[in-house]
C-alpha cells in the first residue's frame, strides 16, 4: 500500500536526564478523520491528526534495529498526549531493569469534534458539515496510521514479512475497548490485546449478568443503561432529558451512540423526531439510541418501571460492535496464539460494568479454551493510570506481557512435554541438560473429557547429572503438573481426575541434581509466559493434578548454589506448590545439599500474571500487583446473582503471590535434626529445605510467623561490641511493616531494601497476606559466586 502522507516530528517531550528513551509527537493529514482538536504549540500543520511515539534509546543508537510496536489507545476524553509521560517513565525503568525488550509505543488521538471520543470505530457521522472529513477511526488506524508508523519507525517483522507477531494493542476504558475491537476484527495484525477496565461490555454480557427480572429471565437487555444512565437524567434542566452534560456515563453514552448508531440521512435536528432516535441538542447531527424515546424532540427517553424500553433494531446494531459477540466468529486456535489480558477493579460503584464485563469476557475465552489473563485488583476504573501513581502504573502489566509475546514471535512453542508412564535413567557419566530457556513439563495427556495419568521417574546414578541451567548456559526449567487453570478444570470436569506422580531418585557417589543460573524446578508450580529473554522473569502459576512428589536423595549432591536476587543472572528458583503429598527421603551420611538459593513455597494460587512475579529482586510493595485482594463472593453474588460461565466465585477469592528467596552458604544435613516425616507435607518439606538448614549454619532466621494480614519484613543485623577487651557479636532482629494499612499505598512504607542492606543484614524474611502464604527472603552477604 502506498501512502503519500507527509509527516513530521514535532517536538521532544518528557525526556529526563537518566532516561534512555524519548517521546515525540508526530502527525499527518488523514483521509479518514478530521484534524486533531487539541493542537500542539507550535502547530506544524492545521490539517494534521497527531499521535505520540515513545522511542527507546536503541532507536537512535542502532539505526539498523527494528522494533515491536504497541499501540496505546486512550480512553474517553483523552488524546495522544495522555499517557506519554508515564509510558516513557515506565518503559525507561523497565528497560533499565531488563524487564521488557525494547519496543515502541504509539498513542493515537481518538478525539472528535462534537461528541468527545470516537470509540475507535468507523462512524458515518459527519461532525462538521463544512468539512469533508468523517469519523472513520478504524480506517485511520488500520489503513493509515499503522502503515505510516511501520515505515517510519522501523516496525519489526518476521522473516516472512509479517509484522503481526510484533504488534500489540492496549488501553484503558474506551482504549481497552479499542484494543479488543481492533484485535478481534484484525487478528492477523496483532499478537496481543490488553483491555484495562475495558468498556467493551455495555451490552450483551453485562446485561446477561443482570439479576433475573419479570420478563427478563435471562437478563435485562437494558440493565446497564437503566442502572447507569437513568440516575444522571436528574442532572438535566429540566430533569429527565438525556443531555451530554448529565454526567460522565451519559457523555460516554453519547460517544458510543455517535460511533455505533449515528443518523446519517441528513443533518440536523429536523430529522430526529420519531421515537426511535433523538438528537444531541448541542450538535448538528442525530443519534439513534438503543432505547425508545418518549419525547424525541426534547430528548426524553421512555422509562417504564424504572427501566428504559428496548429499541431492538438499534440494540442489534450496537451489538455488532461488541467484542463479546466477535468471539463467536473467531477460531479459538487463532486467539490462542495471542496474548490476551484483562483487568478490572473491585470497586463495585464506578467499575461495576467493566468489572463484570471483564469477568464474563475472560470466562467466555476460557470456555473456548483460549488462554487469557484476568486480574481483579483493588481499585476503580482509573486506578493506576496516571502520575503520581507510576509505581503501580497499570500499563506496565500489558507491556511485560507483550514483551514476552514479542520474544516468542516466530519461535516454536517453548515447552517440551513428557506424558504417560516412563522412567528416565541417567547412569555413568551421562548428562541430562535443560538449559537455554528450555522448559520440560511433566503432564498428563490432554484429551477433552478423558482422564489420564502420568507416572514419571528420574533415576540419577553413578556420576550422572541432571542440570537445570548451568554456569555457562542460563535458564531452563523442569516442572511437574498440568498447566491449565481452574476454569479449564471446571469446563472439562473429567480432567479433575487426572493424576501425576513424580519420583526423583539420586543415588550415586557423584550423582548430581543441579539448579544452575536462572534455572527453575517446580512441583505443582509452573511457568507461564516463559518466552522473555530472561528466564528469571518467567511468570509462575499453580499447576494442577499433582498427586505425589517423591524425592529420594540417598547418595550424591543437590547443588543449588545460585545465591542472588531474581534480577541477577545467578538467580534461580526451587518452588514447591500444591500436591497431595510430598515424600522426601535423605541419607545424611552420603547425600549433600550444597549451596542454597531461591526457594519458594507457594500454596494455592490462581493464574499468576508475569506482573505478579518478583522480577526485580526486591519486592515491589506497591503497584497493582499487590493490590490484589480477594473480593468476598457474597458481594458479587448479592449484586448479580451467581456469575454465569466457567469461572465461579471462588476465582475471586484466590490470593496471588509469588517467589521468595532463600540463600545460605552451605546447607548440610544435620543428623541431630528430627527426621522428616514420611510422607512429608509441603510445609515440612519447605521448612526442611529452607529454614532449618539456614539456622544450622549458626545464623538466626528472621521471624516469619505471627504476621497474619500484613506484609512484614524481618531482617537481622549483626552488631559487634568490644567490652573490656572482649569482642562479642550479637544479632539484632529488626522488623519493618510494609503497607500495613493500605496495600495500594506503597509510597507510605516502601520496601526498605537499601536500608536493610546498608545495615548489613544477613537475612530477610517476609510473610504476607493470610499466614498461609509465606515468602522467605534471605540475602547472603558472602554469596557463592
Amino acid at each position, binding site marked *: 500500500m502506498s501512502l503519500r502522507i507527509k509527516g513530521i516530528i514535532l517536538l521532544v517531550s518528557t525526556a529526563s536526564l537518566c532516561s534512555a528513551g524519548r517521546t515525540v509527537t508526530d502527525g499527518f493529514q488523514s483521509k479518514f478523520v478530521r484534524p486533531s482538536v487539541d493542537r500542539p504549540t507550535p502547530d506544524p500543520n492545521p490539517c494534521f491528526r497527531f499521535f505520540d511515539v515513545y522511542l527507546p534509546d536503541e532507536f537512535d543508537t542502532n539505526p539498523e534495529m527494528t522494533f515491536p510496536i504497541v499501540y496505546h489507545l486512550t480512553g474517553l476524553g483523552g488524546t495522544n498526549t495522555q499517557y506519554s509521560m508515564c509510558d516513557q517513565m515506565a518503559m525507561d525503568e523497565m528497560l533499565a531493569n531488563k524487564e521488557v525488550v525494547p519496543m515502541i509505543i504509539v498513542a493515537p488521538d481518538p478525539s472528535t469534534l462534537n461528541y468527545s471520543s470516537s470509540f475507535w470505530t468507523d462512524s458515518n457521522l459527519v461532525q462538521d458539515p463544512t468539512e469533508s472529513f468523517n469519523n472513520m477511526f478504524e480506517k485511520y488506524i488500520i489503513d493509515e496510521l499503522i502503515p505510516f508508523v511501520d515505515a517510519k519507525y522501523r516496525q519489526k517483522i518476521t522473516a516472512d514479512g509479517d509484522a503481526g507477531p510484533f504488534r500489540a494493542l492496549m488501553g484503558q476504558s474506551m482504549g481497552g475497548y479499542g484494543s479488543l475491537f481492533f484485535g478481534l476484527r484484525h487478528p492477523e495484525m496483532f499478537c496481543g490485546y490488553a483491555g484495562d477496565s475495558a468498556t467493551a461490555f455495555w451490552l450483551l454480557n453485562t446485561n446477561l449478568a443482570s439479576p433475573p427480572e419479570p420478563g427478563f429471565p435471562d437478563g435485562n437487555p437494558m440493565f446497564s443503561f437503566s442502572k447507569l444512565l437513568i440516575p444522571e437524567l436528574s442532572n438535566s434542566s429540566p430533569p429527565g432529558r438525556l443531555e451530554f452534560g448529565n454526567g460522565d456515563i451519559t457523555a460516554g453514552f453519547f460517544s458510543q451512540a455517535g460511533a455505533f448508531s449515528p443518523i446519517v440521512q441528513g443533518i440536523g435536528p429536523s430529522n430526529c423526531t420519531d421515537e426511535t432516535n433523538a438528537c444531541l441538542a448541542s450538535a448538528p447531527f442525530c443519534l439513534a439510541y438503543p432505547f425508545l424515546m418518549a419525547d424525541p424532540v426534547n430528548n426524553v427517553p421512555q422509562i417504564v418501571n424504572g427501566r428504559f424500553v428496548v429499541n431492538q433494531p438499534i440494540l442489534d446494531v450496537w451489538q455488532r460492535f461488541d467484542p463479546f459477540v466477535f468471539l463467536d466468529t473467531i477460531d479459538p486456535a487463532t486467539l490462542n496464539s495471542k496474548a490476551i489480558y484483562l483487568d478490572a477493579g473491585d470497586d463495585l460503584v464506578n467499575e461495576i460494568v467493566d468489572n463484570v464485563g471483564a469477568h464474563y469476557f475472560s470466562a467466555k475465552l476460557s470456555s473456548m479454551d483460549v488462554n487469557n489473563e484476568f486480574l481483579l485488583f483493588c481499585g476503580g476504573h482509573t486506578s493506576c493510570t496516571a502520575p503520581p501513581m507510576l509505581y503501580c502504573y497499570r500499563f506496565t502489566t500489558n507491556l511485560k506481557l507483550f514483551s514476552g509475546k514479542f520474544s516468542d514471535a516466530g*519461535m*516454536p*512453542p*517453548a*515447552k*517440551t*512435554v*513428557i*506424558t*504417560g*508412564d*516412563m*522412567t*528416565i*535413567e*541417567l*547412569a*555413568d*557419566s*551421562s*548428562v*541430562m*541438560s*535443560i*538449559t*537455554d*530457556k*528450555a*522448559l*520440560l513439563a511433566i503432564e498428563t*495427556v490432554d484429551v477433552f473429557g478423558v482422564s489420564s495419568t502420568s507416572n514419571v521417574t528420574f533415576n540419577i546414578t553413578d556420576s*550422572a547429572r541432571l542440570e537445570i541451567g548451568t554456569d555457562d548456559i542460563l535458564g*531452563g526449567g523442569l516442572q511437574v503438573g498440568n498447566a491449565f487453570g481452574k476454569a479449564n478444570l471446571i469446563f472439562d470436569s473429567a480432567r479433575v481426575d487426572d493424576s501425576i506422580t513424580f519420583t526423583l531418585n539420586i543415588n550415586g557417589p557423584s550423582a548430581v541434581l543441579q539448579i544452575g543460573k536462572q534455572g527453575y524446578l517446580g512441583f505443582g508450580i509452573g511457568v507461564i509466559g516463559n518466552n522473555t529473554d530472561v528466564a528469571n522473569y518467567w511468570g509462575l502459576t499453580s499447576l494442577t493434578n499433582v498427586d505425589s512428589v517423591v524425592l529420594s536423595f540417598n547418595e550424591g549432591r543437590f547443588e543449588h548454589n545460585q545465591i542472588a536476587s531474581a534480577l541477577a543472572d545467578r538467580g534461580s528458583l526451587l518452588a514447591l506448590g500444591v500436591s497431595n503429598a510430598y515424600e522426601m527421603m535423605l541419607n545424611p551420611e552420603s547425600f549433600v545439599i550444597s549451596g542454597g538459593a531461591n526457594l519458594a513455597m507457594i500454596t494455592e494460587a490462581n493464574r499468576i500474571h508475569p506482573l505478579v512475579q518478583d522480577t526485580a529482586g526486591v519486592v515491589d510493595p506497591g503497584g497493582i500487583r499487590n493490590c490484589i485482594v480477594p473480593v468476598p463472593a457474597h458481594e458479587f453474588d448479592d449484586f448479580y446473582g451467581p456469575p454465569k460461565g466457567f469461572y465461579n466465585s471462588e476465582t475471586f477469592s484466590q490470593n496471588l503471590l509469588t517467589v521468595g528467596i532463600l540463600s545460605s552458604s552451605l546447607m548440610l544435613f544435620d543428623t541431630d535434626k528430627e527426621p522428616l516425616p514420611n510422607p512429608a507435607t509441603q510445609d515440612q518439606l519447605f521448612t526442611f529445605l529452607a529454614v532449618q538448614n539456614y539456622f544450622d549454619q549458626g545464623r538466626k532466621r528472621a521471624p516469619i510467623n505471627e504476621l497474619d494480614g500484613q506484609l512484614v519484613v524481618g531482617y537481622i543485623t549483626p552488631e559487634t561490641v568490644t567490652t573490656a577487651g572482649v569482642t562479642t557479636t550479637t544479632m539484632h532482629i529488626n522488623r519493618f511493616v510494609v503497607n500495613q494499612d493500605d496495600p495500594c499505598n506503597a509510597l507510605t512504607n516502601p520496601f526498605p531494601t537499601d536500608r536493610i542492606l546498608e545495615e548489613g543484614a544477613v537475612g530477610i524474611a517476609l510473610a504476607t497476606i493470610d499466614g498461609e502464604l509465606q515468602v522467605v527472603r534471605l540475602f547472603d552477604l558472602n554469596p557463592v559466586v
Partner: protein
Amino acid sequence: MQRLFMRWSVVLSVALFCVGNAGHLHAKVITLVNDVVHNGVGSPFEIPEKVHGDKLVITSTSHKAVIIRKGSTWDLSDLSSTYKTIEFAGNARLVCEPGSRLHGTGGVLRFVDEARFIVGKE
C-alpha cells in the same frame, strides 16, 4: 548383521546407518553416523520383531543425535511392548526441541557412558 527398517518420519536429508547386534548380548544396537530427525508422531525407529532381548541401544562415537522436532511426538509406547529399555550409549544424544513430546507407557529411557539428553536446542 540385521538391517533395521525405519519409518520415514526421519527427514531433512540425513542418512541413518543402522547396525544390529554390535556386541551387546541382549540388545539391538543402532549406531548413529548422522543425526536422526523425527518429524511427526510415532517412533523414528521401527523394529519388526524382538530378537535380541528387551533393550534397544542407540550409540554414537561422534555426538550424533536423535532429534525430536517441534510439534513432534516420540511415542515410546510403540517400543515398550517389544523393547522395554531404549538406551543411549557412547556419545549419542537425544535432543527434544521446544514443542516436542515424549509419551510412554512404562518403558525406560536410559542414558549411559557419555550420552546426553538435551531438552532444548542442541
